[in-house]
C-alpha cells in the first residue's frame, strides 16, 4: 500500500505519517525543499509520544520525500498512491490542489484523499478545488474527506546533526474521524481511523470542547503572565474558567447533536488533564497564535458560544476567553485591539472586529457579552501588564526588557 503525505509538518509527520507507517503503508512526503531535505537525508524520523507520565518512541523508517517543485515526480507519486493525505493548513489547500488534481487524473485506481487540516469543510473544499481543475467526473472517482485530528503534535525538532532524523513530539492519541460517506469503500485501513456518518458533529465536538478549552487556557494564561500551558492550567482561576467554558461548549453540542457527541463530565476532566501535559513543552504563545482565525464565526470560541446560546446557555466563560483573546499578543505583534485605545473607541473597535471576523452583529447578545467582558478587562490593562487575579482585577507589570547586565551581574 502506498501513501502520499503533502505537508511534512507537525501533523503530517507526527500524526498522519506516523499512523500510515504503523498501518504498513509505504510513505512519500511532499513539501518545500527545506522541509523535505531532512527526510531525504535520513530516510526516517522519530515520533516521541507522551501523556505526561509515560514516553513512547516510534521510528518511522523507509520513507521517501519529493520536493514539491518537482511536479512530474509528485504527480506520479500521487497517481500511484492508494491514499493521499494533506496537512498543509486550510489556507494552502488552493495552492496544492492543481498538483493534486493532475496526479489524481493520472491515477488508474480510485484514491482516497484525507485532509488533516482541522477545518470542517476541508474535504469538500479539496474535492471542489480538484474538480475545478479536472472536472467533476474525474474528481468524483476519488474520495475526499476531512479528518478530525485528536493528537496535539507540539514540536518538530530539527536534526541535531546533518543526517540525523527529525523528532516530532506529541500526545499518544491515535483516533481521527473521517466522513464515511465522502470516501471510497472499502475504507483505507489506517490505525485510528474512525468513519462517522455525522462528520460535522464530530468535528465540532473536538473544536468546541478540546480546542475551545485549549485556546481559553492560552489566552487567559497569557493574560495572567504564564509562559507554558501546563503552568497556566495549574492556576485555579484559569482551570475553573476553562472547565466552565468547555462545559458551555458541551451544552451546545448536547442540544445540537445529542449526549453521545457531547460526552460527560469525565471527558471534560480528561480534556483539562491533557492541557497539563508538561512533556509537550507547549507554550501559551504557540497555542494562542492566529487570533483572527480562532475568533472566526464557527471557530472554537464564537462557534461554541453560538451553539451554547442556541441551547439556552449563556456563554459567559467563552465570552471571557474571547475577550482575553482580544488582548493576546502574538509574538512581536500588538494585540488585535490596542490597550491604550480609549474604552469608548476600543469598545466600538471590538464591536467592528467581532462583526468583521466573527460575523457577530454589534447588538447581538453574544457581541455585547464579549464587549462587556473586554471592557471589564480594560480597567487597568496597559501594554505590558498582566492580570494577577481575574476575580479581584488586580494587575502586575511585565517587562520584556528584563535580565539586564547590571552592575552586579558583570
Amino acid at each position, binding site marked *: 500500500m502506498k501513501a502520499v503525505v503533502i505537508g511534512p509538518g507537525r501533523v503530517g509527520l507526527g500524526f498522519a505519517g506516523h499512523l500510515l507507517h504503523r498501518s504498513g503503508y509505504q510513505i512519500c512526503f511532499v513539501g518545500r525543499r527545506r522541509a523535505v531535505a531532512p527526510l531525504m537525508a535520513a530516510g526516517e524520523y522519530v515520533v516521541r509520544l507522551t501523556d505526561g507520565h509515560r514516553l513512547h518512541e516510534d521510528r518511522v523508517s523507509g520513507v521517501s520525500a519529493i520536493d514539491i517543485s518537482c511536479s512530474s515526480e509528485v504527480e506520479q507519486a500521487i497517481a500511484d498512491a492508494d491514499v493521499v493525505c494533506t496537512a498543509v493548513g486550510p489556507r494552502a489547500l488552493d495552492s496544492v490542489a492543481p498538483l493534486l488534481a493532475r496526479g489524481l487524473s493520472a491515477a488508474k485506481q480510485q484514491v482516497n484523499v484525507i485532509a488533516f487540516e482541522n477545518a470542517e469543510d476541508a474535504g469538500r473544499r479539496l474535492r471542489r478545488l480538484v474538480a475545478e481543475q479536472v472536472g467533476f467526473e474525474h474528481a468524483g472517482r476519488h474520495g475526499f474527506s476531512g479528518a478530525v485530528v485528536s493528537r496535539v503534535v507540539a514540536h518538530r525538532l530539527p*536534526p541535531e546533526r546533518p543526517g540525523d532524523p527529525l523528532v516530532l513530539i506529541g500526545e499518544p492519541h491515535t483516533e481521527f474521524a473521517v466522513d464515511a460517506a465522502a470516501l471510497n469503500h472499502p475504507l483505507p485501513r489506517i490505525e485510528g481511523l474512525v468513519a462517522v456518518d455525522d462528520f460535522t458533529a464530530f468535528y465540532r465536538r473536538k473544536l468546541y470542547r478540546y480546542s475551545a478549552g485549549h485556546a481559553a487556557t492560552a489566552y487567559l494564561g497569557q493574560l495572567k*503572565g*504564564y*509562559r507554558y500551558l501546563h*503552568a497556566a492550567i495549574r492556576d485555579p482561576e484559569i482551570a475553573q474558567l476553562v472547565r466552565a467554558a468547555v462545559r458551555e461548549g458541551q451544552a451546545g453540542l448536547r442540544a445540537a447533536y445529542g449526549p453521545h457527541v457531547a460526552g460527560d463530565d469525565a471527558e471534560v476532566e480528561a480534556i483539562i488533564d491533557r492541557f497539563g501535559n508538561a512533556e509537550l513543552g507547549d*507554550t501559551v504563545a504557540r497555542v494562542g497564535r492566529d487570533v483572527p482565525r480562532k475568533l472566526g464565526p464557527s471557530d472554537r470560541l464564537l462557534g461554541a458560544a453560538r451553539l451554547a446560546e442556541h441551547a439556552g446557555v449563556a456563554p459567559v466563560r467563552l465570552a471571557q476567553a474571547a475577550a482575553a483573546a482580544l488582548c493576546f499578543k502574538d509574538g512581536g505583534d500588538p494585540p488585535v485591539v490596542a490597550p491604550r485605545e480609549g474604552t469608548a473607541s476600543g469598545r466600538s473597535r471590538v464591536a467592528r472586529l467581532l462583526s468583521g471576523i466573527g460575523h457577530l452583529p454589534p447588538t447581538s447578545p453574544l457581541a455585547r457579552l464579549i464587549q462587556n467582558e473586554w471592557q471589564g478587562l480594560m480597567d487597568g490593562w496597559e501594554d505590558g501588564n498582566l492580570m*494577577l487575579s481575574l476575580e479581584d482585577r488586580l494587575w*502586575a507589570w*511585565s517587562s520584556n526588557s528584563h535580565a539586564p547586565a547590571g552592575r552586579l*551581574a558583570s
Partner: protein
Amino acid sequence: MKIAFLMRQPAPGGQSVTTEVLRLLRDWGTTVDVLHPENQATNLAEMTPSHDLYVLRSVSDASIAHAGILDSLGARIINPYPVSRDCRDKVLVTALLLRAGIPVPGTWVVERPTQLAPLLDGGPIVVKPTRGSQGRGVHVVWDVDELLELGAGDGPMLAQRFHPRQGRDRKLYCIGGQLFGVKRVWPARTYEEKTGEPFTVTAELRDIALQVGAVIGTDLFGLDIVISDDRPYVVDVNPFPGFKGVPEAALRLADYVYAAAALAVIEAGQAVPRPVGLTA
C-alpha cells in the same frame, strides 16, 4: 531537564514557596536535586556542573562559595552568582542605588554605633547590619541611650534616616521581569501579616523596581519600599525573597525556572522543544 537548587535545609513540615516550586517542577517531569552546601563536604577537585540550571536560593557563605565555583566552571545559574554574592553587602547595594538616582533614605556607614550620635539631631535613624536579612538586627533608634544599648557589632553598620511609614510597606517582587506588589505591615508577626495583601503596582513603583533590577542585574529579586510623605524610599533589596503574598507565587516561579532550564538546554545544543515566544 536537570535543575539543582542550592538552599538551606527547610524546616520540617515547612510549606515555603520554594518547596512548592520543587514539587511543581518534579510534577512537570523535571529532575530536581536539592543541594545543601552547608551540610556536606564538597571535594573541589571533583566539582563540575552536572545540571542544566542552578537556582541559588540560599545566600549563606557555603552556598555562595559553592555557586562561585559553579559559576567559574560555566554553570548556568538563574540568579547570577555575583548578584547574590554582592547583594549581601547592603553598603554596596545602597551605594549603587543612590548613584543610579533611585530614592533611598539618607544612608551612612559607621564602625561603631556612637559615631551615629550626631545624626540623631536630624531625627531618628534605622540601624541595620551591613549583611543581614529578614529584618534581623534592624533597630529604630530615637536617642543616644538607644544607640548605646546597641553595643558594638561584629563589623560596620548601616544607618538610614527613619521615614515614618505612611500605611503598610510595599513589597515588590520580580519574577522573570514580571512585577508583583504586596502590602505588608512592618514588622510582620502573624502569618496573615507576613502574607500581606496584593495590590496593583503603580507606574512610579514599577519604574523604581525596573531600575533596581537594571542596576543590580537580575530579573529575580524583591525590594522593600516605604512610603513617607507620599514619597517612596527603597529600604531593602533581596536577591531571592520568599514571594509571600504573590498570588500563585510558586506556580509563577516554577513556570519561570522551567522556561530558563529549557533555554539553557537549547543553548547547550541539545534538541528539546524550543519554547515559542520565550526569549533568553
